[in-house]
């Protein structure tokens, strides 16, 4: 399978990138590591006239201390750089746990944090070659009017399949987005749209530029539990992140987030109601598991049955709470 023809744009600065985005308004796909986009382009899921390669913009690469405390990560920072950054491992262990599960070491060398945040949603009926999709019938998400997952439906259930966003959402991370009229900053938890097609609150002429980890969640304990068939390479089939702050053996603050079981990653509402102020026990952790499972709406978008994946959200949320509390 060959890549479709396109013109490659290689800006050296963010301003240059924004100018190109404006010039070729709506005809540009942004590429960073390329591990997600390029296979999809070969499958003709995207055939953009222009591909804008961010990698020349060095200001978007690297991990720094944030101005008001916390940590700032440029979107071009590779996942393996984050994995091996000691401050991340020490202060934001849930991110470390999540990032080291992404794909495989080779893919983490190429893949970036920005790419992982903006990952396209995935579905067995969508991530296929042009010929396969012709054989099956084109779906809502690409070229068609059908949903094979929920026949007759008009809603796209393709699952968001990034590992790092639930961890970042647990840490209260924010992202910076550059657009034609300047930059804006938004909590990551408000970045996603629970719709396999719309996916993100990101306009076509905008680029995510930085991730901010707040000082307030530095030192929170964490755990990320990932369901996959293989010990490496695989996208998550379900994922649960838990980050919590402990004081004197009791939970002072907590966030729980799930991924790969809905079109968007979600913070699990009311998890704190069970946990704050208590010493986590198996029983309490089990309640959190039930909450997480009820937030999950997996469908037949991937390997392993939806019922099993949802059950694993329950098991993994419980385990993640116990594991985070024990860390």
């Amino acid at each position, binding site marked *: *399978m060959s890549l479709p023809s396109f013109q490659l744009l290689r800006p050296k600065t963010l301003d240059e990138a924004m100018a190109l985005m404006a010039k070729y308004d709506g005809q540009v796909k942004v590429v960073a590591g390329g591990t997600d986009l390029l296979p999809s382009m070969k499958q003709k899921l995207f055939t953009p006239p222009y591909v804008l390669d961010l990698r020349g913009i060095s200001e978007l690469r690297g991990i720094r201390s944030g101005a008001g405390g916390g940590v700032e990560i440029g979107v071009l920072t590779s996942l393996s750089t984050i994995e091996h950054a000691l401050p991340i491992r020490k202060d934001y262990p849930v991110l470390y746990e999540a990032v080291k599960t992404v794909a495989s070491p080779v893919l983490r060398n190429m893949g970036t944090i920005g790419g992982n945040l903006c990952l396209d949603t995935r579905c067995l009926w969508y991530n*296929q070659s042009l010929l*396969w999709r012709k054989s099956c*019938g084109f779906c809502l998400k690409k*070229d068609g009017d059908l949903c094979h997952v929920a026949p007759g439906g008009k809603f796209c259930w393709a699952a968001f399949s990034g590992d790092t966003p639930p961890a970042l959402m647990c840490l209260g991370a924010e992202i910076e987005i550059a657009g034609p009229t300047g930059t804006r900053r938004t909590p990551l938890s408000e970045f996603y749209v629970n719709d396999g097609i719309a996916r993100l609150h990101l306009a076509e002429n905008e680029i995510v530029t930085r991730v901010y980890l707040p000082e307030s969640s530095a030192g929170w304990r964490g755990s990320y539990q990932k369901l996959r068939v293989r010990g*490496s390479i695989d996208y998550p089939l379900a994922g649960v992140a838990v980050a919590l702050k402990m004081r004197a053996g009791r939970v002072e603050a907590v966030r729980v987030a799930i991924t790969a079981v809905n079109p968007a990653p979600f913070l699990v509402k009311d998890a704190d109601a069970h946990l704050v102020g208590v010493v986590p026990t198996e029983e309490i952790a089990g309640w959190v598991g039930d909450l997480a499972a009820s937030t999950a709406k997996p469908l037949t978008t991937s390997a392993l*049955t939806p019922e*099993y994946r949802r059950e694993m959200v329950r098991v993994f949320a419980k385990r993640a709470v116990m594991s985070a509390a024990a860390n």
Partner: protein
Amino acid sequence: MTDFSVIGKSIAMVDAAGKTTGAGKYTDDLSLPGMLVGKILHSVYPHARIKRIDTSRAKALDGVVAVVTGADAPNPYGILPVGHDETALAVEKVRYVGDHVACVAAISEEIAENAIELIDVEYELLPAYFDPVESMKAETDLIHENRAHNIEKDYHHVFGDLDKGFAEADYIAEGRYLANEVTHAAMEPHSTLANFELDPHTGKLGRLTVWSSTQVPYYLQHKLSLVLEMPMSQIRVIKPLVGGGFGGKSEIIPLEIIAAVAARAARAPVKITYTREEVFWAHRGRPRTIIDLKTGVKNDGRMTAVACKVIQDGGAYCSYGVVTILYSGALLGALYDIPNIRYDGYRVLTNKPACGAMRGHGTVNVRFAFESQMDEIAAKLKLDPAEMRRVNLLKPPTVTVNGLRVLSYGLPECIDQVVTRSGWKERKGKLPKGRGLGVACSHYVSGAANSIIRSDMPHSTVNIKIDRDGSVVIYTGASEIGQGSDTMTAQVVAEVLGCEIARVNVIAADTDLTPIDLGSYSSRVTFMAGNAALRAAADVKKNIVSAAAKRMNCAPEDVIMRNDRVWNGGTTLSDYDFTASDSLGEKEAARGHVDGQILRGSVLQTRKEDGPKDHMSFEEAVVAAIDFHGALTGTGSYAPPAAARGGKHKGGGVGPSPAYSYSAQVAEVSVDEDTGEVTVHKVWAAHDCGRALNPVAVEGQVIGSVWMGLGQALEEEIVWKDGLLMNPGLLEYRSPSSTESPEIECIIVESIDPEGPFGAKEAGEGSLAATIPAISNAIYDAVGVRLRESPFTPERVLAALRAKKGMKRIEMTESVDPTAPEKFREHGGSLWFRGKGPMRHPLDPARQGTNAGSPAGGGD
């Protein structure tokens, strides 16, 4: 034990440097001036009649040189003489999603891809069959008109007296087992480059040369001849490096013929390399199999009778199917002593990619059922599963009830080894909760005693040429596919000739240069090509020995060739004298005799003829032999002995082998009872390969087999939805990664076969089949659930665990109980024809017939 200098030593593969540095050339690395890229249009329907193909729009595209369709090569072919049911490109019908319809040869891949979108095909849709049991009920719209009820072939064998056997049994176990479909997933996708030369006399297209990633160059030459209507002598097939086959390249894959057809039409070289998705469609993997198994035993575990019914979901073409279904039955024998056997095998056609031969061909899924049921019986009768296997051992030399001759039989030692090393007796049943041990055995042929094409020709022939430079060139048709064929051949010849392996150069698998060899399949190469190499080396050695004997003035029987030296064994000289630091080689090098020996050799010999010698270098002996005899060549061939060729019953030709390998394995696993996830911690794998010619290569093969079995046991599964392959790629078809690969302790058992080369048997396939039941049995030991459907994915294990514990039922396995499966499951979701909606994409096949403006079929 015999003392060898090359055999039995762990040496690096002779082609290792090229493969590990990237310098080695595989088919897709090759190119020729003016070469075109071929791209294939595949069917989007599982079963349809082709009413019309219009290639005019594609031909008109700038950069397109030729477009070919079924009409350009309509002759049918197939790997088996009884199964000539394929054409390179569909002629009247397409029979699976992915079937080959047309091919474009263009100046670039992108143009070729764009051009196939411009081929208009009008189809008439036919009812399609996806489940083998349903397919067997078909009366109309058959997949192949000459195959009633879509049954490719059925066999019904009875050996011994079944009624008597079951009447004698104290206990009878019965059960259905399902093995889901797996594929080879070789690293290298199939690739073929075809080129015609111009005939010097007529200027028309003349000889054809094909470079292809194949395990069977000679069969390819034969089928090309059939389809292209050219004499075989006009076709040269060359096998470059092959990046793994595992059976997926052991027959003719459509692209191999399509490339030649396209090259003929384009009058230019054409290369086609399958995409990974196309590799999955080309498939030829291990079929989904239903096994209904019934075993009768005495209270001490001795088997009295076995009845086995097998249904294989073969896909749309015969491929190796007739052989697969026969192997499944025949290799019920030759592992244990079973006095009475009934076998009913059905190879069924369905509208899916064709299944074929895959590592452990035909034996693996039945072995899963068989070894699982033995474990169930042992549990029922409170027998040690390892002990139960011991009481059922064969007593070789013997011929089994179904006509298989067994001479060497290392199974008892294999069982002893894994039982001892795994601490079986002390640990089985006593491990912590959730952890367990399981044992299973398996075996495999060392090549088929009867070739696919009935003939009396040798199965392998090897030629050797030795020249004045002392170089030994081996010409063999055997196909190196990564298993070590070339290295094995070099070792055997170096051992016989007593020369350094560095002298040996192997020229292999080029039909113009090398003598015929049937190819690399059914684990035949070491046994058959090895024996041919042994004979060829002995043949050429005769002349060297007789010349050396004259030079050294001794009897030929006294001449010893070893470690690159030739000496008179009647003297006191020994091998040791030549390996000392002041060896002859260094002295000669210092005198400058080695340099220039090629040309001055005979002069030198003459000048040095001042008295009988008592030792010579290998080169001196070679030069002497050439001086005496002229060209120094030898040839040797191998055909299996008549006594090994099996019974006379219908289908009795498949299963017999000159020798069988044996394997016993113990797996240690743990099961996460909340998630159903199975972790394999260690596998002890003992394999009887006769003599290990190259122990490190044997270990590699055994470890690779266990690893491939692990994939089928836990992760690998081709998922279907109404004939559509849901996971045609290495991301969604999950072969194990290194992280979940367990420690594998390989134990080589050397039974020294009386007919194998230096006593060797096969090592590449036999271990695979034991791994799956060893893991299944270990899961049972760990958590008490019996999985009768493979692979043992976490959802299946958890469903079984929850049912056993009486927990609330969650429908996790699409209505198939993995402990008592009845039928195959299908992926959830729905295909287009179940959907609805008036506004479809112009390319959506569901628009067919509804949009008068565009060609019917909508640009398929």
